[in-house]
């Protein structure tokens, strides 16, 4: 997968997303950038030792606002410290981080997440490019535990990469900052790395949207994507088919949210959505609520999604009100849940308030994570997965 960076105005659907050459729409949850001066590295504090921060370097957006951080000291590992992050919210102890990186003369570059209060590193991520090319396998934690979520090359600006990673064991009440060693932690090492666009995400996994934080302190918030369309379906057999690339639903759900709805019909509150797909920590579930709150559901357990998986999620609402969930990952044999018991559909959805808001929404209630939606469709009747695939061509 490759990326290019572009601006999106408020309210603009990001429909130019591509993955593996397939056009997608990026939908993800809310987040924050807690790292002040996220692009202006001239304001970051350099440690003792000889080094220079040189601006006007080519950046991933095609501008010249990146910085070359150059360790020119053969005795100590010169580092640069960001301003203190804004305070975290939420109790979860895994947080997401990201930055842009381009190899220069240094053989290795290190990004540290430093706990100011406890005076310890929560993580030190070593990035080792090969001939200027950085891949996930070239990144490793030398201190702390976490995961490299993705290393995404920027299409329009060759050599630039966005590195997204998660760090565990963050003490959320403490203060933190980035500490960057452009030539790695070895004192004798010399060399420069080009860096830009740091992001200390509030959420447990880094969102893919990049939002600068130009302030001297505080954070910039990113609201969640919330796609809604009017809905006036007559109650009856209905097949809902979604095809998307997973970029974190299950991982985030396992951290702090148990109800990541892929889509739903009706309003936000339970049980107002009368039919929806929900992705929990380990399961993908189709549910059908009655107006009195009773529900029937079909669970596909442990689909074992990993970042970048192509997920096909199909729920079938039968005429008797039963539901059945089918999940296929990367085109492999589908996992079919056991069809639920029936539950009578009302005679008219609008008339008896089955759908309180007469709309459907996508990915609107998740806290973070998300998906790159490739296509989705609603089809009258009960379709097999192959039939839904044909209908969704």
């Amino acid at each position, binding site marked *: *997968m*490759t*990326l*290019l*960076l*572009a*601006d*999106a105005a*408020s*309210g*603009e*659907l*990001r*429909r*130019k*997303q*591509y*993955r593996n*050459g397939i*056009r*997608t*729409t*990026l939908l993800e949850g809310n987040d924050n950038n807690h790292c002040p001066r996220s692009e202006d590295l001239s304001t970051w504090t350099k440690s003792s030792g000889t080094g220079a921060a040189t601006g006007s370097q080519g950046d991933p957006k095609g501008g010249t606002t990146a910085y070359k951080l150059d360790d020119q000291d053969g005795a100590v590992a010169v580092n640069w410290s960001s301003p203190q992050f804004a305070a975290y919210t939420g109790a979860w102890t895994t947080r997401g981080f990201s930055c842009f990186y381009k190899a220069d003369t240094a053989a290795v570059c290190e990004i540290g997440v430093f706990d100011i209060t406890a005076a310890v590193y929560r993580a030190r991520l070593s990035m080792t490019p090969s001939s200027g090319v950085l891949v996930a396998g070239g990144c490793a934690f030398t201190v702390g535990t976490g995961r490299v979520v993705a290393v*995404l090359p920027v*299409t329009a600006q060759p050599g630039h990469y*966005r590195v997204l990673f998660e760090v565990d064991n963050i003490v959320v009440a403490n203060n933190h900052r980035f500490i960057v060693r452009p030539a790695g932690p070895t004192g004798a090492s010399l060399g420069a790395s080009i860096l830009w666009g740091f992001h200390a995400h509030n959420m447990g996994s880094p969102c*893919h*949207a*990049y*939002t*600068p934080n130009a302030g001297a302190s505080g954070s*910039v*918030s*990113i*609201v*969640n*994507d*919330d*796609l*809604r*369309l*009017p*809905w*006036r*379906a*007559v109650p009856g057999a*209905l097949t809902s088919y979604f095809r998307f690339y997973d970029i974190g639903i299950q991982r985030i759900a396992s951290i702090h949210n148990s109800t990541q709805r892929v889509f739903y019909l009706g309003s936000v509150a339970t049980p107002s959505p009368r039919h929806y797909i929900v992705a929990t920590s380990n399961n993908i579930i189709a549910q059908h609520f009655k107006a009195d709150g009773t529900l029937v559901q079909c669970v596909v357990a442990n689909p074992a999604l990993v970042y970048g998986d192509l997920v096909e999620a199909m729920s079938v609402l039968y005429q008797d009100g039963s539901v059945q969930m089918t999940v296929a990952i990367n085109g492999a044999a589908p996992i079919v849940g056991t069809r639920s018991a029936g539950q009578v559909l009302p005679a008219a959805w*609008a008339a008896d308030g089955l759908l309180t808001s*007469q709309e*459907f929404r996508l990915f609107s209630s998740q806290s973070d994570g998300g998906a790159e*939606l*490739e*296509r*989705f*469709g*609603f*089809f*009258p009747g009960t379709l097999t997965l192959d039939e839904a695939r044909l*209908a*969704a061509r």
Partner: protein
Amino acid sequence: MPNPYIEWTDSTGLARLTCLVPTLSGWTPDVDPIGPSEVALGSGQTFQWVFRTDQVVKFTLPYISPAQASEMLRLKAHLLGGGSVTVFTGDGAARVYTCRIRPETVPVVNQDPESGEFALVLELLNTGGTPMLALWSPVGLLFTPDTDYLALGGTFTRAQVATYFAGP
């Protein structure tokens, strides 16, 4: 929300022709400013003396069963006679229009040779003078990244400054 239907009152009384599916096919609104139009020889600019502006629509009422054929022909005759009808679109906003036939058009009756069902192609003029818009739900529809969600009546919340667009 009931399916779309057309209602009118003629010399026989109140009548209704109901669409068997939730959407009217090929709903295409248009506007027709009525009046002489000339193009200036020197500048090439178009000038028009507009006496009125017709807000019109063309659509098909599909899947009319043979049992409803008499109502269908009654509707055609009513329109050709200058009568008005009420179109209940049954769209997401429950739009309703009072219409007459679009001048110089004739309703066209088609029949499916296999099913025997009829389809009535109509061009109507909104007597209310407003654009004839209708947006139906996505049931049975497919959405891709190229779908114009806003045109469908959707909303999309995003307040970020910058994002990634990936390239193939």
